[in-house]
């Protein structure tokens, strides 16, 4: 009961209002998009039947002007009813607990739970940017321009749904409402207790099979490095290669893409699905790393 009361308090904090709005609008627009796409797939493309194209001026600008007034009303009411979410003066000797990034980066912060900082904070964001940049070059499907469809672009829509809706939006929601003091996971009915103790029992993947990650003297266990390397590389490279080899004859789309486009797409995709896989391994099986490797004392390559 107390936990729920606490959850309600967190939910209604002025800070979290944009996140609530974001949730509602993402779900609403998602639903709207899917609805229209399904209608198009079922009944033929509706947009193609429409010929009543009208001039931007005045027909669109008129509506936009009205919407501007609407937004102004909304912002006025918001600014009157909700006080600015100011907190205590910043104090270099006292870190707030939990210490959270701005809400739009909470997905990135969540990744830090599962990966080393240089992967979660540097490598993965870089690949997200590169991936977004190369989308026009690797997407050779001409369909779906100017109308909604699921049937004609199943792969693209699946990637978007995993990448944006789950890995970005859902992680923001998780980070805002379910990460409490100590960045521990709290269910909505649990009170955010500062003194909570959670057992730390994570082990590396191969330790589950009795293969230690490091030797007694602190050096890396070569067997583990070898096995982990094989596993990671076969995930990132082996699986796409296998699919290429097996389906390049049967699936014309692969041939159309060509090997380079396919390689880039596959690498980005495997990295993307790697994240939820790692999350699952951590949450369900307490796996810390699948591959522990490094050079010297500073350069680690733990995945």
């Amino acid at each position, binding site marked *: 009961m107390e936990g729920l009361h606490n959850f309600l308090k967190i939910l209604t904090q002025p800070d979290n209002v944009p996140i609530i709005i974001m949730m509602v609008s993402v779900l609403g627009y998602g639903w709207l998009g899917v609805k229209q796409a399904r209608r198009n797939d079922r009944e033929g493309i509706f947009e193609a*039947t429409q010929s009543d194209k*009208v001039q931007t001026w005045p*027909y669109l600008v008129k509506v936009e002007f*009205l919407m501007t*007034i609407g937004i102004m*009303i909304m912002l006025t009411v918001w*600014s*009157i009813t909700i006080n600015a979410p100011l907190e*205590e003066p910043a104090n270099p000797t006292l870190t707030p607990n939990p210490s959270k990034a701005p809400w739009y980066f909470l997905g990135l912060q969540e990744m830090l739970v599962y990966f080393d900082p240089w992967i979660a904070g540097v490598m993965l964001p870089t690949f997200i940017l590169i991936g977004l940049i190369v989308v026009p070059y690797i997407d050779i499907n001409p369909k779906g321009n100017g109308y909604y469809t699921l049937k004609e672009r199943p792969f693209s829509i699946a990637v978007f749904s995993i990448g944006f809706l789950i890995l970005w939006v859902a992680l923001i929601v998780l980070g805002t409402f379910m990460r409490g003091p100590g960045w521990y996971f709290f269910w909505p009915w649990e009170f955010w207790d500062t003194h909570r103790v959670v057992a730390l029992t994570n082990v590396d993947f191969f330790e589950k099979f009795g293969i230690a990650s490091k030797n007694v003297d602190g050096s890396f266990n070569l067997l583990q490095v070898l096995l982990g390397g094989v596993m990671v590389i076969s995930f990132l490279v082996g699986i796409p290669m296998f699919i290429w080899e097996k389906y390049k004859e049967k699936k014309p789309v692969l041939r159309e893409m060509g090997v380079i486009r396919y390689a880039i797409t596959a690498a980005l995709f495997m990295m993307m699905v790697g994240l939820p896989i790692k999350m699952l391994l951590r949450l369900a099986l307490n796996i810390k790393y699948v591959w522990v490797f490094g050079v010297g004392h500073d350069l680690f390559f733990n995945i």
Partner: protein
Amino acid sequence: MAVVPSTRPEKAPWWNPGKYFAVRRKTPIELRSYTNIYAILSIFLFLFTLWAVMDEVLTRRPWKGIQEDFKDFKITRLNLEIRKELHKLNPADTQAIHKEIKSLQKEIGSNAYKAKLSKIEDYDTKIVTAQRDYTFTKSLADEKYYVLDEARTEHSDTTSKSKTLRELERTMNGQKRVVDSLQKLRADVEAQVVPTERRLKEVEHTHDSVFAQVIVLKRKREAAQQMNIAVRQTMLVNYEKTNFNNLKMRVDRCVTCHLGYDDDLFKNDTLISTDAAQIKAWTKSNKYNDKKHYTVVKLGPNQDTVVAKVTTVFAMHPNINLLIKGHKVGEPSGNGVLGCTSCHGGQGGSLVSTEFAHGFEHHWTEPLATGHYVETSCRNCHAGKMDFEGAKYISMGKKLFTDFGCYGCHNAPGYDGMPQQAPSLLNITKKVTPQWMYQWISNPRGWAHNTRMPNFMFNQHEVTAVVAYLNDQAKTGTYRPIATYSGGGNAVNGKQIFGEIGCFGCHAVDDYKTDSRVKEANSFGPDLNKIGSKVTAAWMFDWIKNPKNYHMQSRMPSLRLSDGEAADLTAYLMQHTGTNDSVSSSMTEDINSPALIKEGDKLIRTYGCFGCHEIKGMEDEAKVSVSLSTFGKKTPGELFYGNVPGSVLGHFRSEFKKIGLPLAKVDEEAIHDNQDWYTWVAGKMKNSRMYQTERIPQRMPNFQMSDEEAYALTVLLKGFTGHYVSPSYADQPDDPTQNGLDEGRMFAHWNNCVGCHQIENAGGYVGKYIQDAMYRPPLLTPEGNKVQEQWLRNFLKGPTPIRPWLKIRMPTFGFSDSSISVATHYFLATKARPFVLTDYQFVADQNLLGAGKELFDQLKCLSCHVLSTAGGAQQIAPNLELTRHRLRPDWVIDWLHNPEGQQPGTRMPAFWGTPEKGMASLYPAILGGDVEMQIRAVRDYVYSIGMDNLLPPTPYATINGKDHYVYPNGRYDVYLTNGSIVNDGQGSIIPTKPSTTAPAGQPAARAKPDTKHASRAGKSGKPTAMR
């Protein structure tokens, strides 16, 4: 491709939205009308803009309503005052005045009077015209005369010219007469008017003086009516630092609402109105009626008189002199000018709501400190102070923190380098038995009800282990008694000695009871009621003879006891036996077992016994517990509450509230399960192991504090915030007077000087047991003005009797030179005197010595005082031979003026009357009956006693227009014509030239301070070095 319908579908009614939008969807975009949507949105935008303005101007500015209310209240309050003031006046008088003013005004207003005034005006006009005519004619005459004169010079014909001139002169005279007669007429009429006007002025003047108070009040009312509705704020520039160490300004706007804070019309609970209709109107008022600023009370036998009284928001500050004026609150910003939040906390800049302004918003780190917690902020500026006037609990907390020896285990600001609080245990076995130690450590308060030794809650085995270690480490102790007790002694005599020499100044026994746990008065030393079962007689005998022999750092002084006295006292004290009833079983284990000793070693190191006691082998141990330097700022998240449920914490809150010492208010929204700072500390003070769990051991012993003690410590601890206040606002840390006071107060507390003596009008607790004020130890409040530093030093080193009739003894404390400096500095600082080397070589005025001797004989000074050190028990006043080296010359003047004022209860008569009842001399013949001169004469005579060779006589000088006595050492006094004498200290003096005429040894006559070039009329004839 859809076909664009050429016609617009039928319009649907807007009150049926389903249909309306269905139709609308079918309408082509070009044909859709947006008028309605635009209209609705525009109306909403307009309304919400209005709302925004309202919110900005009214909702978020509640202080405007409060100020309106204050204005109302102030005007009503002033009306009440005016009515009261009018009531005081004699109605007959005031009516007469009003009547006369009315009649005079009526007369002035009458037509006849007005006619006279207009007549005067008439005459004035005529006079001006006539005067001008006359002036013009005169001017013409002058011109003609010039022409005539010219003609005369040129010897031309002058007849006609002189004729014209003559004519003009005639006209002129005629005109002059007209003017004169007009003026006379005017004066006649004016004479009829003037007395009335003069009378009116007189009556009005009388009116103003009779109604003076009323007029002042009415002016105040007028000012109140014109009061601006505006934000009022104080800015403390560079007052404090941010968390990033940058200087920061603080802005306080508290007085925007608390307008009556310095207005004595609004003393708390003052009546503001008795007018029932007015009060009803306030209650209905829309200005700020969700919060009433007054309480409505019903008075009278039938409860029918309704009155409204001021409550907090407008009430005047309860301690306006010390806390408002003393802290320069409300002055324009500048050095040392403080605002409200410096002491009270709260969000000084906020005006949005009471909760925000008071800082009850969980992100605001300094909410309003309610109740006595306002005292916590005293420490921010007065870090070293021991006693705070009007701040009972922080003063008590500071004393308890010292006396409980908290600093033995915790680092705390202001307690660095303090000596250990409790006795040395190096030779403990020479004093007590292991069995007694066992009894004691098991439950200290079971043995002595008010001891400060805490209970460590050891089990039987642990206590035995600690005793084993202490017993073992004492085997190498070096203590050997100096004085040997050979038995005997008379307990009855001992009891008498105990009561006479002042042992009860520090110790409680028999009739001298005590409850306090603050180390002060007779709870300073241990309670001696069970001492006979604790220590051995041999140890006791040596201890009271030579306290420093057993424990070098002991605060127990030597009372210079003879062997006989010491034996009697020992016999008396050893009679007092008792047991620790709460500890039933005794030690069962062998305390010499090495395993047990080792265990004891570990326990002592863990629990930090060495924080307070000197123990062998523990000299280099660090303090065992956490530093408290910023403890007051800890958040609930940083405190460990163990398994203590919120209900128990809440219980502390309600219990403290019940005894009238409520814990400070907190922002309930931010607090979970009563887990706030105050409940944590209150719980810890009451039960130090409360938050212990299976996994988290706690070691703080239980001090078994009373609620009040626990509360006082919460107040002190809350103040340990490490808050930085700029030096220009804080107590000057390098102010020598302040340092002298701070160190001195600590010294006086540490050595229990205040047990016997009253210093700074506090202390002197032995007075309770000594009925006759004459037999009490002397008051030391005037000490800084009274004695010479060198004498004080010698006296503290080895007291010599001043007042042989006193039975109570000044002990020999064996103070170090630095301690004596602290004491001397302290006494001087209490009188704002600098701690500097002063030369007391006093030069008596030879002219006064004769008169002084005569007065000295006439007043029969020697019937009480003596003039030799060999004063017997019959002596009832101090030896005057000592005066010269003991007392400050200027103080003796004060003393002779008013002995009772300096030392209440003194037997010294006030020979010259008292300043309150008027001063007069009994001997008008001597020195012309001049009281000041007679007092000086007696003083000078007393100072000349025992001096074989008087120094050269005093010359006079006139310096800055005043007569001066100048002493050879350059010091001087000022003798003012009104008879008072002031010491000018280091005032400016005009450099003087040597006078060549002053013959050696001849005093300059007092009656002739005729030269501005005073000289030192000494034998050398050299110029006086004056500063």
